[in-house]
């Protein structure tokens, strides 16, 4: 299939395909990070993760409409406010959900799965009732659209760069929050030994709530960012669920590094295969490979060998 092209064309294409893979990688990390925090740190399966993302997207949509209508001069930078608001809104909803629902179910992980699925249905219908069944179009400032041409063929989409930078910032932020801050230390303490953490004066309930809210908040940011590349509709969140869970499980549930590694592996595999095969087959093959590897290595890519 390469016979028709010159070497420069091929080189450019591999560069671009590599870049497409990197964008996909960033998208995956953004999708999965919030889930990985919640699942890895708390052992809770949040099936409504996609709906939290869509909440972020709708917040962005509202922001864009509001800014366009009332303060059009700020339209160029509204996206940053929108993301912050998306984080706050999704985080707040997350805290509420943790308080009302999740905290009763910590000992029953499979039941959180069902309950959060129920939650996802409710949120979907709520979006539909509020925003209508149709997808909404989110207007973006012009500087976010378009691309930077590097050579004749190589063009780098700006929103792709934006997503990559955002992912990097959030990943670093999460790293500091979980591994360098007091809150992170408490979170990890609770993960390792809930009783002991409680005994030394950590408010474990508060830690749980904050962790859950953080995961949901990051989902909100992801949703906000995805308005640049995907659709915003009541049921759009469901599209992400399988991919996201597989990434987290494939990475090894307890490890954020694993989530990043598995995002990388899956995104590269998928974008490479997409180039050689049809999109549908690439997707099937990627999923099959992941499931296959998981059957051979159920603990995922990264996991500590632990004494039981």
């Amino acid at each position: 299939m390469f016979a028709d092209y010159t070497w420069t064309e091929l080189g450019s294409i591999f560069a671009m395909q590599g870049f497409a893979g990197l964008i996909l990688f960033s998208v995956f990390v953004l999708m999965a990070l919030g889930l990985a925090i919640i699942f890895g740190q708390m052992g809770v399966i949040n099936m409504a993760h996609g709906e939290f993302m869509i909440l972020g997207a709708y917040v962005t949509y509202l922001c864009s409409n509001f800014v366009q209508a009332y303060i059009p001069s700020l339209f160029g930078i509204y996206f940053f406010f929108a993301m912050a608001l998306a984080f706050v809104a999704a985080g707040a909803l997350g805290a509420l959900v943790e308080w009302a629902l999740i905290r009763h179910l910590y000992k029953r992980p499979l039941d959180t799965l069902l309950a959060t699925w129920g939650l996802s249905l409710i949120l979907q219908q709520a979006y539909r009732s509020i925003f209508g069944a149709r997808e909404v179009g989110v207007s973006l400032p012009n500087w976010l659209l378009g691309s930077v041409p590097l050579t004749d063929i190589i063009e780098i989409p700006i929103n792709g760069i934006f997503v990559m930078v955002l992912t990097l910032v959030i990943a670093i932020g999460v790293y500091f929050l979980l591994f360098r801050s007091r809150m992170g230390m408490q979170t990890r303490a609770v993960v390792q030994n809930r009783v002991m953490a409680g005994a030394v004066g950590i408010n474990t309930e508060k830690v749980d709530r904050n962790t859950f809210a953080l995961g949901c908040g990051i989902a909100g940011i992801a949703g906000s960012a995805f308005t640049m590349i995907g659709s915003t509709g009541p049921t759009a969140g469901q599209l992400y669920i399988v991919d996201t869970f597989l990434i987290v499980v494939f990475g090894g549930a307890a490890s954020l590094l694993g989530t990043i590694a598995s995002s990388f592996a899956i995104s590269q595999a998928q974008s490479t295969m997409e180039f050689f095969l049809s999109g549908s087959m690439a997707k099937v093959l990627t999923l099959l490979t992941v499931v296959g590897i998981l059957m051979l290595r159920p603990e995922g890519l990264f996991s500590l060998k632990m004494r039981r």
Partner: protein
Amino acid sequence: MRRLKDLIENRLSRRSVLTGTAAAAMLATAGAFAPSLAQDVNTTGLAVTDDTVTVGILHSVTGTMAISETGSVQAEKLAIEQINAMGGVLGRKIEYIQEDGASDWPTFAEKAKKLLVNDKVAAVFGCWTSASRKAVLPVFEQYNGMLYYPTFYEGLEQSPNVIYTGQEATQQIIAGIDWVAKEKGAKSFYLLGSDYIWPRTSNKIARKHIEKLGLKVVGEEYYPLGHTQFNSVINKIKLKKPDVIYAIVVGGSNVAFYKQLKAAGIDMTKEKPVLLTISVTEDEIRGIGGENIEGAYAAMKYFQSLDNENNKEFVKAFKEMWGDDIVIGDVTQAAYLGPWLWKAAVEKAGSFDIDKVRLASPGIELTTAPEGYVRIHENHHLWSKTRIGLAKTDGQYDLVYETEELMEPDPFPEGYQ
């Protein structure tokens, strides 16, 4: 394929000779002026009284397809209301029973059966996806009902119990490809679609036609429904540098596809590549965002912006009924035709009986259609013009071309399979 066409044409024409077109027309005239007794116009026990006739509306109000089907429901209700305001059908007001298919195909079959068996409706306006139509088809054939189906679709079907008010694939595709080949000098095409029957069948027809014209297909690609990452295929497109990107992406994927296409620096407002789609109506643009699809061309039979008296009135009435911020796409208009075509057929037959309506249907014309003149072909599809629209940032299409003649519907196109 030839055999089937002959078969049906023969059958239809023989029967219409037997009943007598002239007689039917006379009956229709008589019926229109002097409302007859229910038992005269309804010999098969349909839900027809001296004052009313009941029809069914069967679309998804819930589930993933609700997004798309809402417009059709609105159009059908508008048509029914207008017909009632004009005095109804054979002097009878139309009442409707609306059922929710819930985006679930067995539910469609279930509800279709309920409408036909329990409610004894005289006609059903409904369905959107091919899958839902395929699910209800055996029900309509078994219980002898009449379905008016609004969506443009892949063809390969011709049921005596369905009137297809949308275009079948060849009508949309052939005119569109002829146009880009002629007007834009296109030589090479990249075919792309969501992975299911309509895009696949359509692209198959497109490929045959492109090859027939001596042009080249440089790529063909399908993505699962709901897929949101198109960077790889966009790269392939950049590599192959086709003159035309022929896209039949649907649903949420649409949004992702056009946004990413734009972000990757493929500027559709430039001379090349031309993006030609048959799946994006004004309805879909609302989700995609006009600025993301500006410059793309769509080949279908109706655009909201069509400049004719029928359409102006239709758009005005539609907005009065459903609000100013509504947009009207191809399928919505096709759905609007359903009740009118049925009314015309009933009045031509002078009866609500399904068999008589069916026999009366071929040849029915509608001069008041928003899209202009349409006529029911003997294969139960519509003769209609195909138009090319250019997408603008405000989410509307500008008409840039329309076929001179009505395109003949050809659901089993020979040489295209």
